[in-house]
């Protein structure tokens, strides 16, 4: 197998790869759909969801990712990646991949001037909050009952979800020096 793939069509894929590499896990940029079938896991990074979606459609990623997801490939989406993993979007574009039973709205916290940092309560390390970086972030509006909440803000707002081996976060662990979230994903993939 070829380790963890990070979709490298547009966005901050380099930051994910650096974090996985620093944890001793092989990670590579994915630019072709035929690279996906060999992977242990896939990450859809932050970026512009409309751009990533446009390039996914152009280079036949949509069916490749959906097929791999249904054969149980672990997938984690951050921010734009979360938008693309949703079952349903409040907005008309982009068309999401429907990998998780969640309902999401894009840029729902406002424009760049409203981007924010806040500490996140983390289901797998309750003692130590995680630094949440939210940039023109999407909001998780609803989740189905088969979806677990793994991250919340202090007011209870859901910002991280898990459904089987699919993860979605509306914030960017890859932009911080805290690698606990990447470790959590590695454990999910390789344990």
């Amino acid at each position, binding site marked *: 197998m070829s380790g963890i793939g990070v979709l490298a069509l547009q966005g*901050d894929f380099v930051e994910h790869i650096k974090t996985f590499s620093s944890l001793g896990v092989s990670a590579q940029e994915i630019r072709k759909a035929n690279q996906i079938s060999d992977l242990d896991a896939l990450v859809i990074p*932050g970026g512009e969801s409309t751009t990533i979606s446009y*390039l996914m459609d152009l280079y036949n990623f949509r069916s490749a990712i959906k097929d791999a997801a249904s054969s149980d490939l672990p997938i984690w989406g951050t921010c734009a990646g979360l938008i693309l993993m949703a079952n349903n979007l409040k907005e008309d574009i982009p068309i999401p991949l429907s990998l998780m039973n969640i309902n999401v709205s894009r840029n729902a916290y406002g424009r760049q001037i409203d981007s924010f940092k806040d500490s996140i309560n983390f289901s797998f390390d309750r003692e130590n909050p995680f630094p949440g970086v939210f940039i*023109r972030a999407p909001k998780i509006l609803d989740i189905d009952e088969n979806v677990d909440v793994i991250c919340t803000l202090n007011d209870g707002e859901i910002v991280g979800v898990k459904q089987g081996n699919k993860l979605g976060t509306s914030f960017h662990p890859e932009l911080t020096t805290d690698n606990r979230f990447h470790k959590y994903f590695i454990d999910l993939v390789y344990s």
Partner: protein
Amino acid sequence: MVEKNTWDLKTGLAQMLKGGVIMDVVTPEQAKIAEDAGACAVMALERVPSDIRAAGGVARMSDPDMITGIIEAVSIPVMAKARIGHLVEAQVLEALGVDYIDESEVLTPADENNHINKHDFKVPFVCGCRNLGEALRRIGEGAAMIRTKGEAGTGNVVEAVRHARSVLGEITRITNLDPTELMATARDLQAPYELILQIHETGKLPVVNFAAGGIATPADAALMMQIGVEGVFVGSGIFKSSNPSAMAKAIVKATTHFNDPKIIAEVSSGLGDAMRGLDVRTMPEEEQLATRGW
């Protein structure tokens, strides 16, 4: 505790734009064409640089109505230009809710000595540069993203190449210097010492670095990416070409697949005419936009 408008949030949005194409647009319709073609952001302005060049006179911030119309038309980030040193134009753009301000040499400078103190703003700024010293002065003033100046409105990539090679070459040189030489380097480059030290330690700029100024074809965009920038701005190159939507899509594809000549060949086929270019060498210095600012 909730924090907003911090340095990492300002630089973080630029991280999200990496590997993407930021397109100049002058109407909401053009903004929509850009978004549909996969642009990761748009730059709202009244005239593209080649028209600014042709029109002459003083080029200023765009009409707020036009910027608001573009903000309403698309879901991707919207940037807009303020004149160098014109802090009130920047305040107006911040109040309109733009996601990034370009303090740009494409507009007529309002202050020939001082750039805007960008730390004073909540909204992040991108600024142009010709070399590393200029990039670091802008970062010192608070720019959260850097682009080459190139020579806007010419459709000629030569200046963007010169500026990107200069910035990246200087970074490589500084990375290999003995620490004893860093203060003299800061003096020679007229750059803040702390930033020179940071580059020596990390081997890279502390902010995202895009190419701009003269990019007119998919191959131009891929060239800049291979040289080592993290994304591209395309100004006149899209809406001054004969088929803007096709050119926009082709440049987006070439930027993602910048290392794949087969894909670049495929996307470069049948695009119609690129914008008409200008030879920078025959251009009088007073017509060169890159010399504005310092």
